[in-house]
């Protein structure tokens, strides 16, 4: 695991160096363009007395435009910013903070469970929008075989017996619970989840109680909110579209719900 982490850091460094190289090349190209333009303007100015002031004015505009482009970083500035904001594997504490009560799982292992999700910068920004979320790993509850999870308060995921489950099930549980964290910390995003409309549009995907049918308590509700649970479940299904029966083709079975998650969570 440590080796993977080192590799990721190395990849990050290589990416940053490559970006810097590309930026330098862009500036050089810009400078060459400015010199050529200035030569053109000079040649134009020399040909006619009437055109001279126009050519000089155009030259001035071009000059100021180049200055503005250089100062603002040009059209590449936004994407550069986005790159800088992407989470780095070397700084897991900016994503989540764990408390381990006897269940053997490291931070790096947990990061790897959610790695696909964290690789999306919008997901990472949403799930950490009010700081890193908390994760508590507890031993299994009673004689329950397997793993369970819940969200305590608004920002804490508590797992029971997390290491007892397969990697696939760990991923599902972690994604689903992180969906709750996203909803809890981003009221506008949660508010905009059109649950009633999606129930009507993707009718076959929702139980009679309004839960996405892959949710464990879809037929009973178990005292939970169908909007809360469907929001969280949709986040999990987006990255596990073929693994949660009966919704084993999430994109095609529930196209409207899929598109909402793509456009609002993993955009």
């Amino acid at each position, binding site marked *: 695991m440590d080796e993977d982490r080192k590799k990721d850091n190395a990849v990050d460094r290589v990416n940053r160096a490559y970006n810097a190289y590309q930026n330098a090349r862009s500036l050089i190209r810009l400078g060459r363009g400015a010199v050529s333009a200035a030569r053109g303007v000079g040649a134009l100015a020399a040909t006619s007395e009437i055109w*001279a*002031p*126009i050519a*000089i*004015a*155009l030259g*001035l*505009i071009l000059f*100021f435009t180049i200055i503005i482009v250089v100062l603002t970083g040009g059209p590449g500035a936004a994407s550069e910013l986005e790159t800088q904001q992407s989470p780095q594997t070397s700084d897991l504490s900016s994503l989540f903070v764990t408390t381990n009560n006897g269940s053997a799982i490291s931070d790096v292992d947990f990061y790897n469970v959610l790695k696909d999700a964290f690789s999306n910068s919008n997901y990472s920004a949403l799930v950490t*929008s*009010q700081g890193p979320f908390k994760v508590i790993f507890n031993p299994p*509850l009673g004689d*329950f075989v*397997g*793993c*369970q*999870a*819940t*969200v*305590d*308060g*608004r920002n804490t995921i*508590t797992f*029971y017996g997390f290491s007892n489950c397969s990697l696939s099930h760990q991923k599902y*549980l972690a994604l*689903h*619970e992180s969906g*709750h964290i996203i*909803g*809890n*910390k*981003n*009221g*506008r995003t*949660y*508010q*905009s*989840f*059109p*649950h*009633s*409309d999606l129930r009507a549009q993707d009718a076959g995907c929702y139980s009679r109680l309004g839960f996405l049918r892959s949710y*464990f*308590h879809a037929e009973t509700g*178990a*005292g*939970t*909110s169908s*909007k*809360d649970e469907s929001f969280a479940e949709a986040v999990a299904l987006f990255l596990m579209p073929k693994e949660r029966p009966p919704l084993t083709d999430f994109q095609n079975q529930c196209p409207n719900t899929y598109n909402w998650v793509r456009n609002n969570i993993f955009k």
Partner: protein
Amino acid sequence: MKARFLIIVIVISSLLLLFSVMSLILEKAQEVPPAAIKETDFSKTVPGKSTTADVIRINGKPRTTEVKETKTYFYYETRHSDFKDTVVFERGVELYALENIFDSSEANLNNVLKSYGEHETYYGAGPFLWFVFLEKGVAVETDEKEILKILYFVPQEEEGFSGLFGEELGLTKETPTPEVLRP
């Protein structure tokens, strides 16, 4: 001749610069989304005083109504089908009004906290918190960044508020028990 030349240069430069700036301004103006449609404004009615007629005069007729014992509920459509703005009357007088806020420009959490001062914190039926300003007769549902709902009520003591809105909206000061476990 030299002065004339300079004037022409300055005039042309100024015109071109002006044109560029105007283009940028127009482009930015086109990016601004259209003004949000505001369905209701419950801040203009007064809980404890306004009547059904007052509410209808200011906000129009509700989409649906419901009567439960001594209370009458007016439901107004909002831009999201999952949310209804609600005004509740008791014996014809406004008891409280609940308005959904979908746009940060409609209500700002920092401004509310700054203006209204001390608040009580309640937990709601959903995942968000309620900041309650008992003396002001205002409460806001929030994710601690944005205001999601505003509740207007008759200013009152905490006991009365907890009783009424515990029953009506499921508000409580007790930390909610964790959700059911998911296997």
